[in-house]
């Protein structure tokens, strides 16, 4: 981006040389700090999780119980957490991605030019609402409204595993169904903004070529904007997935604890990785039980790391998710 200053041969060698060196050192050190922070994050979580993992009497990946009350008989596993986390995130993604693509197409191709920017800011405002407020709204306002929908789906499509009877009561709406819809709202802005960005980059020539062939507006979008923006759609979805996987407090407020393990139903309750850790925060005193939660945190860290790396890969480099 920047141009290099010319060689300074023959010029007065002032404070600039030392200043340059010190400043460059500071800049490089700052960059290295970021790398160090991520490395330390993985390292510390792993170190603190290790003793508990060794003391674990159950299989960490396959057990659905999470019992840390007796430090001498730790039995914890992530299978249930994984199921709830993945189901709620994927459900959120299934709702949010088509809507986000629709919004992006609307903002880039349909909205009057003058309003495109304010409209886009309106969608971005959704990202400004704190997640705890979404949680409050989700459980106190949205959940009662969703109740008839949930009951209808459960009554009529109950034979399908997603809509089967869950392990918590439908009343109150503390289910993955509600949580997933709230998560969809929360990840909508990031998917939209990444998708919108690539849609605006569609080469004008492609669009004009399609128009010259007599394509309707929809056909132009289908033949030029969508294929060109596919990488952005995938990257945006991945970023949204990463957000949904790690969302803590909204899910914690909404989901109701369940007595038994779930069976991949949207009407299950339970805990995600993040909400499980947050729910136990008050009990973080004894090292071994705490380590169990840190182990779950490490898995979440690894999961989001992979998802975000994939997002970057899909975008072919830098993704700018605000």
């Amino acid at each position, binding site marked *: *981006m*920047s141009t290099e*200053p*010319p060689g300074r041969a023959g010029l*007065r060698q002032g404070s*600039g040389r030392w*200043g*340059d060196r010190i*400043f460059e050192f500071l*800049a490089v*050190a*700052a*960059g290295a*700090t*970021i790398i160090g*922070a*991520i490395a330390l*994050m993985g390292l*510390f*979580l792993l170190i*603190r999780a290790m003793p508990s993992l060794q003391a674990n009497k159950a299989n960490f990946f396959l057990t659905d119980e999470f019992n840390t009350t007796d430090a001498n008989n730790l039995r914890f596993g992530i299978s249930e957490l994984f199921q709830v986390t993945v189901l709620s995130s994927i459900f959120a993604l299934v709702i949010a991605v*088509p*809507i986000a693509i*629709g*919004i992006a197409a*609307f903002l880039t191709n349909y909205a009057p030019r003058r309003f495109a920017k304010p409209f886009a800011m*309106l969608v971005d405002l*959704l990202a400004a*609402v*704190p997640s705890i*407020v979404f949680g*409050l*709204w989700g459980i*106190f*306002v949205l959940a009662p409204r969703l109740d008839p929908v949930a009951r209808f789906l459960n009554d009529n499509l109950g034979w399908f595993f997603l809509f089967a009877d869950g392990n918590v009561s439908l009343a109150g709406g503390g289910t993955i169904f509600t949580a997933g819809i709230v998560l969809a*709202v929360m990840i*909508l802005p990031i998917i939209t903004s990444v998708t919108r960005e690539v849609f605006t980059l569609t080469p004008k020539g492609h669009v004009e070529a399609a128009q010259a062939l*007599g394509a*309707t*507006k*929809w*056909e132009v979008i289908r033949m030029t904007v969508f294929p060109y923006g596919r990488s952005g759609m995938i990257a945006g979805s991945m970023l949204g997935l990463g957000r949904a996987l*790690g*969302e*803590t*407090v909204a899910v914690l407020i909404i989901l109701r604890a369940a007595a038994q393990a779930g069976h991949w139903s949207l009407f299950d309750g339970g805990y995600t990785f*993040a909400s499980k*850790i*947050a729910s136990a*925060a008050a009990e*973080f005193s004894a090292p071994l039980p705490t380590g169990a939660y840190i182990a779950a*945190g490490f898995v*979440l860290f690894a999961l*989001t*790391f992979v*998802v*975000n*790396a994939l997002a*970057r890969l899909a975008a072919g480099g*830098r993704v700018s998710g605000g």
Partner: protein
Amino acid sequence: MTLTTLDAAVKGPTFHPISLSRKIKNHLAAVLFLVSFLIALVPLVWVLYTVLARGFRAITSPTWWMNSLYGVLPEEFAGGVYHAIYGSLVQAAIAAAFSVPLGIMVGVYLVEYGRGWLARVTTFMVDILAGVPSIVAALFIFAAWITTLGFQQSAFAVALALVLLMLPLVVRSTEEMLKLVPDELREASYALGVPKWKTIVRVVIPTALPGMISGILLALARVLGETAPVLILVGYSTAINFDIFEGNMASLPLLIYTELKNPEAAGGMRVWGAALTLILIVALLYVLAALVNRFLTRNRTKTR
């Protein structure tokens, strides 16, 4: 050949009217795109309306902004959230004090110096850091600062976790703004014999400053609403606590989360009042960011 042959077109018209099915599809797509935009506005308006309607009564109480909840019974309609506002702002301010200089330096590194593998790894890690869930950042601070180094739970620990969450936002906005600075400005400065570091500090950064400040304000707004770090790294307190290194400290999200367990009507009032207060503070920061962007940028172009 007579002229009559030219009375009619030799060939039929090349343009066919658009078939009905294509027309329908075209209109259907337009409607669906519009509807998806409107769908996105529904939760926004709905959430804001809910919070406003339910929290309005609480924040108009005279004690809301000036009092804490110290000594206030759960069922009492009294007290305020002054202690939580203080906590939220202080924690965010400490986080900013660390992440702003560091984030700006990272941005400068990536735009002005970044070459080779180190820069590539750094941008990658900034992206990863931006995607780290807040609960993981909090857990990391818990594992490193509290368990390993032996410090107490405190507001400062929360601030450390917020640094991690704020850093990528600051880096991104700095980077974006520095890239907008025209190369001609740098070249002019170099031509005058100004060393590179002075060029960056005196020419490049001042030019990008309004955008950077508004980016920082938006980042602040983002971390103010973070709940996960305060759940893990500090305890709740109904009284004001000025000490950032010791003792419990309330913050707006923590107050909301704590009062959720209060079954009394007053608890509900505090929950929605605090939610509205939080949204008002975030909105204030957004407005401030927009003003900075508009007015400082305009002045700059005038003087140039």
